[in-house]
C-alpha cells in the first residue's frame, strides 16, 4: 500500500450487521462497526418480536391471561406462568393450598433445568462445538416428555400454573418418573464435565469480562451478576412459595468472563436437582386448587397494586399489576431480564473485542429476544 496515501481512520471502518437470523443471534440484530478485526462500537437493534403484551393483557380476564402468559418467553413458559399467578394471588389475598405450592416449585425447577440445557446447547453451537449442541437437545427431550404427561403439551403448558393453584394434579406414578429422569440428567452433567477440553477453554476463558461495579450499574441480574462476584439470589433474599423451607446453595464465581458463566450453569443445574428431590420427598396431600374456583368463576380484581419478583433462569423477572375493581387488570407491566442484558451490557462488552469473540460473548449472557421485546 502506498505510504503517502492520505486516509483517515474513519474511512477504513466498515459496518457489519450481526443480524436477525435464526441460527445466529436469534430474533435480534446488532450493528457492529469494525476496524479490521476489532470492534469499535456496537449498536443494538431490538423490536423484531414486539407483540404488545402489556396492552393485550388489559383486555382479558385473569384465567385467559394465564394462557397468554406462557408466551412471554418461549424457553421458560412455566416460570412466567408463576409470575402472573403470584401477582393475581397477592392482589386477591387468598390462601393457595400447600400441595399446590409444592407442585409449583417442582415444575418451575424442571423448567429451569430445561432452559439451562438450551443455554448450554446454543452456546456450544456458537463456539463451534457441535457434539455438545446435539447431546444437550437430546437430553432436553426427556424433560419435555415429563411435561407432556403432566400438562398436556411439550413446550407450552397453556396456563398450567393458574391463579389459585394448578390446573390438574400430577398423575399416579409421576414422582418415580421424575426421579428416573433426574438420574439421566446427572449422567448428562458428568458427560459435560468430561468435555471441558482445550478448545472450549481457549474460546471462552478471559473473554467478555464484566467487573462487579459495572455490572450493578448496568443493571445485570441473575447468573451474569453471580459470575461477577455478588452472592445474591431472589429465592433466598426475597423468598416466595416454599423456598424458605428448602436447603440449597448459591454458586458464585469471581472473574466474570464467559467461562465462569459456563461453570455457574452446571452448578445451578445440580442445585435444582437437589431442590426437586427435597420437594418430592415432603409433598403433602390435599387439594391442588382453591375449592370454590373453577374456570367459569367470575373473579373481580380489587383496587390496589402489587409488585412481584421472581428468579427466572435468566435473571430477575417481575410484574407490576394494578387492579381497579373490574374483572380485567388496569395495567400490567412486565419486566424481563433480557432488556438489560442485551442492550447496555452487550454494548459495553462488545466494545474493543475481536470479531471472532462476538458469538462467545453474546451467547454467554443467555439472551432471550422474546422477553426483551414482549
Amino acid at each position: 500500500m502506498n505510504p503517502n496515501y492520505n486516509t483517515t481512520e474513519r474511512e477504513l471502518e466498515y459496518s457489519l450487521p450481526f443480524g436477525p437470523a435464526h441460527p445466529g443471534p436469534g430474533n435480534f440484530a446488532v450493528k457492529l462497526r469494525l476496524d479490521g478485526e476489532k470492534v469499535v462500537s456496537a449498536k443494538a437493534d431490538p423490536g423484531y418480536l414486539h407483540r404488545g403484551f402489556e396492552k393485550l393483557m388489559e383486555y382479558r380476564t385473569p384465567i385467559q391471561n394465564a394462557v397468554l402468559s406462557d408466551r412471554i418467553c418461549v424457553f421458560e413458559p412455566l416460570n412466567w406462568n408463576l409470575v402472573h399467578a403470584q401477582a393475581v394471588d397477592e392482589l386477591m389475598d387468598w390462601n393457595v393450598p400447600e400441595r399446590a405450592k409444592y407442585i409449583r416449585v417442582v415444575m418451575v425447577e424442571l423448567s429451569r433445568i430445561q432452559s439451562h440445557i438450551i443455554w448450554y446447547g446454543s452456546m456450544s453451537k456458537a463456539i463451534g462445538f457441535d457434539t455438545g449442541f446435539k447431546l444437550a437437545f437430546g437430553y432436553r427431550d426427556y424433560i419435555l416428555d415429563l411435561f407432556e404427561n403432566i400438562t398436556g403439551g411439550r413446550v407450552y403448558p397453556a396456563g398450567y400454573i393458574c391463579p389459585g393453584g394448578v390446573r390438574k394434579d400430577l398423575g399416579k406414578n409421576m414422582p418415580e418418573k421424575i426421579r428416573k429422569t433426574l438420574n439421566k440428567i446427572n449422567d448428562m452433567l458428568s458427560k459435560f464435565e468430561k468435555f471441558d477440553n482445550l478448545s472450549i477453554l481457549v474460546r471462552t476463558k478471559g473473554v467478555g469480562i464484566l467487573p462487579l461495579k459495572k455490572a450493578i450499574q448496568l443493571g445485570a441480574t441473575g447468573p451474569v451478576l453471580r459470575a461477577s462476584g455478588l452472592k445474591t439470589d431472589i429465592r433466598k433474599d426475597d423468598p416466595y412459595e416454599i423456598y424458605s423451607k428448602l436447603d440449597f446453595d448459591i454458586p458464585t464465581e469471581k472473574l466474570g468472563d464467559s467461562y465462569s458463566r459456563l461453570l455457574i450453569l452446571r452448578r445451578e443445574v445440580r442445585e435444582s436437582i437437589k431442590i426437586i428431590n427435597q420437594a418430592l420427598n415432603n409433598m403433602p396431600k390435599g387439594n391442588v386448587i382453591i375449592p370454590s374456583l373453577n374456570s367459569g368463576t367470575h373473579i373481580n380484581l380489587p383496587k390496589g397494586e402489587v409488585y412481584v419478583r421472581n428468579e427466572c433462569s435468566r435473571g430477575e423477572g417481575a410484574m407490576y399489576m394494578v387492579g381497579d375493581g373490574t374483572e380485567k387488570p388496569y395495567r400490567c407491566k412486565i419486566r424481563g431480564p433480557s432488556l438489560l442484558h442485551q442492550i447496555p451490557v452487550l454494548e459495553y462488552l462488545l466494545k474493543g473485542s475481536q470479531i471472532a469473540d462476538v458469538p462467545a460473548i453474546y451467547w454467554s449472557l443467555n439472551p432471550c429476544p422474546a422477553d426483551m421485546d414482549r
Partner: protein
Amino acid sequence: MIINNVKGSKKMSSQILKTIVELLKNLFQKPMTVKFPHESIPIPGGYRGEHGFDIDKCRSCGLCANICPNKAIKMVKAPEEYGEKYPRLYPQIDLGKCCFCGLCQDVCPTKAIKLTKNVFLSTFDSKEVIKNPVPKK
C-alpha cells in the same frame, strides 16, 4: 518450553484416551432419535389435540365462546340437513385461530367438548380448517 510441551502432551494423551473410551461406550447404544413416520413414539393420554364434539350433550349456553382467549369459537346454527333435529345454536371452531389451551373443555358444564389425541391436522383444503357442529356418524 520443553516442560510446557511435556505437560501439554500428557494432557492431550489422557484426553485422547478418555475420548476413545467414551466412543466405545456409545458405539453400541441405541440412538436417541426414531425414524418417523415408519416408527413413532406413542402420545400419552391427556394430550391437547383436536376437539371432539358431542352434539347431543350440548346445551347451547355459549360459555365456551365467551372464555376462548382468541375468539375461535362462534355460535352458529347447525348445517341444513340437521336443522330439524337440532334447531338451537352450536359452537363452530376455527382451528387456525385455536391455541389448544383446553379452557373450553374445562368450562363446559355437560362435557360436550373434549380434546382428543389427534395432532395431524395439516391439510391442503382451506375448508377443513373450520369445524362445523355435526353429529357423529
